[in-house]
Structure formats: C-alpha cells, structure tokens
C-alpha cells in the first residue's frame, strides 16, 4: 500500500477500484454517448484513448493527468453527477484543469446528494504507481491510499 498527498478540490471519502489513463481524459468524447444512450456501466467512448476505451467508468476511481477537449467538458461531468452516473472520484496527477474544475464545482454546489471527491496534484509517481483494478481510498484531507 502506498499513500499520496494531494490537494482537495471537492471533499469526500470513498473507496473504489482504479481505472487509469496516462493521457488526457477527453470528457465529452468519453462520456457523452454513454450518458445519451443510457449505458448503465458508462463505458468510455473515447476511441482516441486506448487505455480507457470501452471500460466502465461509473463508480470507479478515475486516475488521470488532466482532462482535455471540448469546453462542454465541465457540464458533461456535471450532468454525469446529476444523473448519478459519475466516477466515484477523480484523482489528478497534475494540477486540475479548468474544465474538470468547473465540473467538480458545479456538481458540488448545484447537485444535492452526490459526492464525487476530487483531488489534484498527486504527482507523476501516483500515475505511474496506480494500475487498473487496484483499490484506491480517498480521505477527506486529500490523502489517497493505493492498494
């Protein structure tokens, strides 16, 4: 088990199974089709992301460097949370980008009854250590345990 200290963007505690992308997570390309057509597992639809394409994202600890792509990214993430189809948490190796931050904040302020802890600045080592299927626990103070 290894611990990483990050910065809390939106607080919360959760334990979930990791899904990992070492390239930018394109929120629109990844989530829109799954949300639109009722995919219960919310499988990643981004054909440009070989690490994630086709993998379920709902309830997972999504480990990523940052998000990329369309500026609908934040609202897509907000919708995923409002529809209870979001990852369990989002764990960023890099400082968070503006689209992911928007999605996290919109969900935190405007959606009742949904908690999606978001932690950033976990460092490059975090992303090289964590692998698909590992168990990840996020603490309220931004500590992330990977087992």
């Amino acid at each position, binding site marked *: 088990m290894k611990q990483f200290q990050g910065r809390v*963007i939106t607080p919360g505690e959760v334990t979930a199974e990791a899904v990992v992308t070492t390239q*930018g997570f*394109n929120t*629109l*390309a990844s989530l*829109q*089709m799954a*949300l*639109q*057509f009722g995919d219960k597992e919310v499988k990643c639809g981004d*054909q*440009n992301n*070989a690490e994630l394409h086709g993998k379920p994202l709902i309830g997972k600890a999504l480990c990523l*460097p*940052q*998000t*990329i*792509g*369309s*500026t*609908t*990214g*934040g*609202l897509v993430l*907000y*919708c995923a949370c*409002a*529809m209870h189809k979001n990852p369990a948490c989002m764990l960023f190796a890099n400082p*968070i*980008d*503006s*689209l992911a*931050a*928007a*999605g*996290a*904040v*919109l969900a*935190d*302020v*405007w*959606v009742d009854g949904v908690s999606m802890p978001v932690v*950033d600045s976990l460092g490059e080592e975090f992303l090289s250590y964590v692998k698909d299927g590992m168990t990840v626990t996020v603490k309220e103070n931004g500590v992330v345990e990977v087992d």
Partner: protein
Amino acid sequence: MVLTNEQQAILNGEKGETLAKVMKTLVMYGEAFHAEKLVPITSKYNHLVTSFGLKVMSPVYDLMQQILDAGVTSGQKFSVDPRPLDKNVPANILQKLVFNKFMYTKQDFYEEQLKELGLMDKDAFSCTCYMDEMGNRPQKGEVLSWAESSAVVYANSVLGARCNRNSGIIDIMGSIVGYVPYFGLLTDEGRRATWVVKVQTSKKPEAQLLGSAIGMKVMEDVPYIVGLDAWLGQQLDDATCAYLKDFGAATASNGAVGLYHIENLTPEAVELGDKLIAEGAQEYIIDDAELERVKNNYPVVWKDPDATPKLCFVGCPHLSLQQLKDWTDKIEAGLKESGKKKVAIPTVLTAAPKVLEVFEQTDYAPRLKATGVVTSYICPLMYMNNPLCKKMPVITSSNKLRTYSSARYYTDDEILHAITKGGNNK
C-alpha cells in the same frame, strides 16, 4: 480570495439564494486555481458553448430554469454554438426519428431559455461568433467569460483578448454576476509560452494536422511557434485568420490549448517576441515525418475501413465566407477535371447563419449548389454524436470532428479528391 463588498454581499445571499450559488460557484472555481480576486468582464458580448437541447442534458436546463425562476438574467447578451439540426443536411428516416423524437427533444425549450437569458438574436448560433458577419468580435485585452474551445483559443491567440478555457455553465455564470476569477490566461504570466514549437516542414503544413500534433504534445500549455510565418506571412489577413481558426480548433480539441503565439504574426508575439517564452520552455520540432506520424496514428473506427464514404462534412469550426468561396472554386475545378457534374459523395459545408446569408447573395451560391454540395449552419459534431452515425462512414477535414466522432480525417486536398473524383482515399 479577496472579494469586494459588492461581491461578498452577493455571496452572502443579500441578492438571493440563486445569485449566491452562482457567486459561490465562481469563487470555488477560481480558488481551484489560486485566484486572488474576481475581475470585471469587459467584452461587449459573451459566447456560450451549450446550444443543443439534448434530452440527456436535462440537468443543465433544470439549472438554467432555477436561474430564470429567480429572476436572474445575463448582464451581457451572448452568442452560442451552432444548432444541432438542419433539415437540409442529408439524413435517413431513422436518423430523423432519432434526432427529433429522441435526442434533441429539448431544443425548442432550451432556445426559449436562451432568449430569456440574453441571446443576441435568433441567428446568433455559431462556433465562429467572431466572424465580422456574426458581430461578436472582442478587442485586444478585453476580459471574456467565453466557452467553446475553438472560439476561446481564437479570441486569445488571434484577437489578443483574455479568456480562460471556461466550461459550459461557468460561461453564463460569469455574465450573470459580471466577473470572472483572475487566473491562468487572464494573467501576463499565464500567457507566457512553456513550449517552443519549431516548424521545419518542406511545405505549408495542413492547419488541422499541425494543430493536432501540437495539441497532443503540449496539452494545455501555451506554445510559441516559430517558422510558421514563413508559410503564412506576417499579416493577419482573411486567409491567415481562417488558417489559424482551423489550426487553433485542432490544438484545443486534440489537446487543451487555450492560447498559442506565432512568431511575427499573432498580436502578442509581434508585440513581445521571444520575451513571451518562459524560462526552461520545452522544445518540439515538427517536420514532414512528424506530421505523417501523427496522421498515421489516428485510429480508424469504421467497421469496414475500406467502406465508401456516405457523407462528407467540411466546416468544423464553421467556414469563413472566403473559405466557402474557395471551396466552391476548388470543387468546380475538381469536377471539371474528372468530367463530373455533381460531387460523388453527399457533402455539407457548414458556416455561421449570417455568413451563409451573405454567401447566398454572391454568385458563388448557385455555382456551389450546382455541384450538389449542401450548405448548413449545423454543428456536425451534434449530427454525428449518435450510434446511427457511428455506423456510417463519414469523412471530414476537421480534426475536431475526428476527435469527437467516428468521422475519418483527411486533408483538404484528399477530401477534394474524394468528393470530386470518387473513391475512399484508402
């Protein structure tokens, strides 16, 4: 974050609970980037990314309704991204059914919300709101609350305005309170380049391919590009601006670029030169082989990679008036060469409603129509985002459309060949 008395009062709920939540959103958003203050928006108009009444986006419309029900509207009028539907665009019965009865059932409802909130006018739907015909062109140094990645990168880079890559909903919230958090691309430091990209190609690089290569390499960083002025010149004329529009859209969608500088060409690069380059900037060299490598690595997601294309989209982001005229000339010439009268693949050129209005008044419009090409104001991405279109072999010269859909990317010349000569550009 230090707020003014007025901002603090709003946050404290003195102007109502809804405005307090809007302010809280902006403050939390800014604090994620260590913003120390909110600054006034100084542009005349805003631009929003959310133009589509997708049923699945109901939480967005519910949030908008909360805002409207609280008697709150945007302090600025705004333009918005393209509409998703146009009956001129070829679609079969099943597609029409899915579009109208399943996907975009909230379109009319959402457009009414936009009108109430402050839509500029009924035709203010385009991702290229900065075109002269559309009338939403910010000035150098103005602070914006825009979203739409291709518009933000254009406003920052080509026009010298200041805007972060805001998400949808955050965009309108800025307009509602009149402020945006001060961080990132609003600051001088945030506009400095952390990459130097050296263009060393043997010919003018394809805009959407060059943008893709840079976007994938630098992600959200700011690149300072040298060597491109040798191909583009040092004037921001119509042709160069159109090139930069397409180039920027690819940097923003294939990566997350919100600002680029081009030596001797874009306003801040002309003004400040290499003083814009941050200490320790990384280097990326782009030559013919690198562009070829990038292009060859695009995944082909068609079920049958050798399928004959059923549809072609050109114009994501929307074409300029000059680009519409240039495509008309090129298609006519290509058809003449191949001895054909009509294009071999149903082809749609997309542009802003007001650009199309002007185009329709030129003698190019009937000439283009005679080739069988259709013009439309839609967002091709919105058209493509459904399983029916995913099964359809669509080709495009838009790297943005390639990124977000199953459309296959070809260069402008390859597209021209395919639509005027036939074949699938295998």
